[in-house]
């Protein structure tokens, strides 16, 4: 797994490449924008090849911790395999999911400006 963080105004785009499973979630949780609960993020999953329940758990934990601090965790560009994991677990109901990273950033910017 590889993580890259890019700032887009007040939002951090966190792009994850490769695999998010039990062997890589710890690394994700240590990355600066994820570990800071007040930072709103768009998780760009375009290059996430594989997600399992351990990886999903890390995303849900991130969402919860950030919501407690009124920060957002949006998802963009997931492939069909990753989407399948969200749908089976119903996680697609608690995340805002976008097909386009720029649209997700716009939406997150509006949401956080409103507060």
């Amino acid at each position, binding site marked *: 797994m590889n993580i890259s963080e890019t700032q887009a105004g007040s939002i951090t785009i966190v792009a994850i490449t490769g695999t998010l*499973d*039990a062997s890589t979630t710890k690394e994700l949780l240590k990355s600066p924008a994820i570990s800071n609960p007040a930072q709103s993020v768009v998780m760009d999953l375009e290059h996430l090849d594989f997600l*399992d*329940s351990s990886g999903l758990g890390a995303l849900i934990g991130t969402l919860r911790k950030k919501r407690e601090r009124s920060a957002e965790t949006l998802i963009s560009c997931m492939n*069909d395999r990753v989407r399948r994991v969200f749908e089976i*677990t119903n*996680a697609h109901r608690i995340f805002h999911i976008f097909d386009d990273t720029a649209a997700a950033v716009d939406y997150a910017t509006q949401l956080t400006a409103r507060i």
Partner: protein
Amino acid sequence: MNRIITLTLPGELIFARFASETAAKAALLLINSCDGGADDWKFTHAFELAVSEAFTNTVSYAQKPASPQPVTIDFIFEKQCLTVTIRDTNPPFSIETPAPDIESYPERGYGLLLMRTVMDTVTCARENGTNIISMSKQLNP
């Protein structure tokens, strides 16, 4: 004759991806061996995901994590059906766990739900202190 591929890995989470990628490859082999079988991504992904979940559980709930035991995974090919079995000496458990309530943001408890959903059948037998987890899926049900 049924064909079997057996993979034995160290019982450590860093090998989870090796297990899941091998499972995907086994599924692809079954697809390719069935004449004209389209590359059914859902079939391949089912094995990749279910083996990732099962391997992770086997390692995570092992009783002596200080000295990890090897984990053996069998891939059994039968006509249009692929079966994966994983054995462990962990405490017994039920595979009929309820689906977690997503509205309370639980971080765990999705593994068996995913396994049951993507596979046709998932069973866990307990024999002589061993859990035998078995997961099957037909290519064209």
